[in-house]
């Protein structure tokens, strides 16, 4: 609402806690980027890291990173920012018993050591090349005095950071009001332009749209493609589309964790890959900037080898492969999914055409994850957003290192990934990721499907350019002059 200098936006999900270490939702990331700052900043246009709360940084050795901090920065509550804040925050979140929800965001750090008032060292648990990615992303710096006193619970009710917006009010899960932080430091993020951001949780997309049409909301995102198309045609709102780092894939139980079934056969998996017309799904369902992907990672990610075996849509070949594998009449299998039911349904129909009778089991995310952890699913439709970390370690290594969610259990792949993950030499890393991804594609451990996109719909009064990391930076939204 331009008149009140208030941007009314909607979250789809109830945010469990606005303390960025204690939620794992996309909404939490969005909130975090506005209220807190990291030590570094990733410039979305150049792809370069810039200093945010730190002004310079360098590896002292493989596991020690030394950073110089910006001076004169103040937290929203007036507390001064210095090395103590960094040390306190890092030491707090790095301790597993403090229960940070997304451990992988922080468990690479061992501790932080104060060198002087404006210099700190972060010690990692072994070589960790992706460190900057995290320091520019999920690791936000909290005020030590306030956090020590209030703790996560207090922070969740009255968050305090150094970010471009300060929090005016929090009704847990329901309603948050952000106000421009007038004392924002000279950050590469840039100061906020709009005075107030009013965030309400509205779970239903239709209600969000209804609010948008009736003027109750100014800005929503994650609008499904069909609706976005229609809204664009209405001409009353700006619709922006940007790809995201999330890809969809079929996770196939090659290792036979869920028992002996056809999918353990490579030919069957390849048949599945040939059976699905991914391009048609992208064209008619996902639309926008979505692309078919062939490798088990997001194409822009570091190490994401693109030169892998591809499986084009070829039902005849799929049938032939099935016959070769000994299933000329196809077979029946449970097909698990937790989101995007229409995509799953479309795949179901393609599978049916080659004789694979897939029974859709649509579960809650946590329930499905339970089953996967126990190795009970032979085929499931999964998606992964890599936390917007632009590095193959955030996806390939997540799923192919014999963890609970690894249904390939390929020792060769494990070895390559270990080598890639622990080296600081980009060339070595690239080489090893490439090997791993090629094998994954050859064996069709996964059937990578497509990348996602996101639609941002906002009033024509507002100006905003979305970024591929799917993070809405409120401070980059402005009113049109």
């Amino acid at each position: 609402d331009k008149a009140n200098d208030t941007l009314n936006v909607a979250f789809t999900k109830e945010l469990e806690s606005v303390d960025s270490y204690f939620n794992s939702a996309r909404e939490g990331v969005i909130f975090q980027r506005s209220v807190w700052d990291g030590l570094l900043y990733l410039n979305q246009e150049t792809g370069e890291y810039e200093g945010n709360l730190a002004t310079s940084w360098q590896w002292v050795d493989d596991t020690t990173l030394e950073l110089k901090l910006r001076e004169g920065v103040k937290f929203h509550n007036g507390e001064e920012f210095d090395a103590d804040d960094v040390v306190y925050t890092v030491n707090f979140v790095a301790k597993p018993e403090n229960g940070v929800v997304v451990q992988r965001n922080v468990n690479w750090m061992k501790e932080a050591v104060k060198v002087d008032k404006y210099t700190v060292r972060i010690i990692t648990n072994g070589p960790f090349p992706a460190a900057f990615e995290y320091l520019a992303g999920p690791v936000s710096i909290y005020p030590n005095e306030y956090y020590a006193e209030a703790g996560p619970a207090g922070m969740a009710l009255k968050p305090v950071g150094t970010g471009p917006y300060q929090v005016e009010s929090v009704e847990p899960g329901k309603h948050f009001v952000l106000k421009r932080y007038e004392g924002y430091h000279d950050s590469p993020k840039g100061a906020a332009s709009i005075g107030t951001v009013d965030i309400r949780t509205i779970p239903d997309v239709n209600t969000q749209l209804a609010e948008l049409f009736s003027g109750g909301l100014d800005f929503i995102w994650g609008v499904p493609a069909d609706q976005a198309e229609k809204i664009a045609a209405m001409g009353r709102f700006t619709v922006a589309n940007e790809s995201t780092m999330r890809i969809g894939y079929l996770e196939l139980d090659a290792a036979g964790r869920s028992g002996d079934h056809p999918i353990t056969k490579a030919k069957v998996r390849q048949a599945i890959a040939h059976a699905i017309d991914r391009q048609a799904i992208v064209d008619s369902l996902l639309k926008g900037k979505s692309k078919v992907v062939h490798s088990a990672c997001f194409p822009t990610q570091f190490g994401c080898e693109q030169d892998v075996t591809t499986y084009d849509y070829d039902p005849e070949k799929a049938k032939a492969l099935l016959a070769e594998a000994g299933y000329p009449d196809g077979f029946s299998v449970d097909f698990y999914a937790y989101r995007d039911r229409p995509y799953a349904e479309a795949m179901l129909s393609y599978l049916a055409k080659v004789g694979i009778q897939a029974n859709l089991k649509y579960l809650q995310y946590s329930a499905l994850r339970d089953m996967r952890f126990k190795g009970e699913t032979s085929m499931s439709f999964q998606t992964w957003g890599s936390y917007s970390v632009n590095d193959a370690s955030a996806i390939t290594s997540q799923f192919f290192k014999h963890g609970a969610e690894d249904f390939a259990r390929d020792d060769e792949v494990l070895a390559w990934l270990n080598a890639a993950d622990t080296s600081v030499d980009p060339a070595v890393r690239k080489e090893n990721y490439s090997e791993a991804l090629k094998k994954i594609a050859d064996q069709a451990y996964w059937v990578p499907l497509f990348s996602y996109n996101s639609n941002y719909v906002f009033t024509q009064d507002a100006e905003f350019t979305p970024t591929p990391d799917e993070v809405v930076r409120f401070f980059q939204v402005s009113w049109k002059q």
Partner: protein
Amino acid sequence: MPGSIRASGWGEAMARTIETVAEEIRSPSPGAMLRRRIFGHYGLVFGIAVLTIIVLIALFAPLLTSHDPYTQDLMARMKPPFWMAGHDPDHLLGTDHLGRDYLARLLYGARISLAIGAVAALISGLIGTAMGVAAGYFGGKVDLVVTFLINVRLAMPVVLVALAVVAILGGSLEVVIVVLGLLLWDRFAVVMRSSVMQVRDLEYVNAAKAIGCSVPRIVLSEIMPNVLNNLIVVATLEMAHAILLEAALSFLGLGVQPPTPSWGLMISEGKQMMLFEPWLIAIPGVALFILVLAINLLGDGLRDVTAPENRG
């Protein structure tokens, strides 16, 4: 010797009584009276007619459309129905978000809704009737226990519990039907309990006891036929209830699994586009509304028609 009474000319008067009886016996049997009342009740006639049509549609769905409800065509998504511009004459009611023929899904969907309603009502009917009849007939401790269970059941928020269970077990036709069946027995139990209690104290039941009838015989042949109408009424209403609940569960994403063409699911799928293509929810919504309406009218009508005060 009974004959002697007759022979004694005991009743010339009796003979005349017999004549008047002959007169009166022409008053119709209960069945015939019921039939007559049924056709005098417009709501009931409407309910029966619509329900019959829907059942026929469900049975003969394959004959009524040449389309398969599962065949998708991603190139022909959300084609509008025949009354709107740009429709495809091949798809009378248009196509859904995956390009499946909406008419075919609607027709086949009738099967699902009816099956859910009927089977859920059957399961809950069996449970509730058994409990209600036992409580009503035996009273005392049995009644206390059943009343307690009914209270427990009523105190449990149905939608919540159904959601929880379906969320745990994963939605599928069978799960939804069984969950609804296990949750909706309360009204059967309540109604059966009170109607059996009413009938239990009637003198013909006492007469049957005095004759030496066994308990199962009394319950099955003396009591049940007289509370059957209430049972049928509750069954129809619960059937409607189950159908609506399934639709609500589907709306919340925890109902029958796709690609099963359930009407509730169709609304849930069409809901995404309801602001732009309202017919997507209007068509299954209206179908659902008409089905539930018909079943309710049938139930209401049966209640009116078989209500004790209407009995001859």
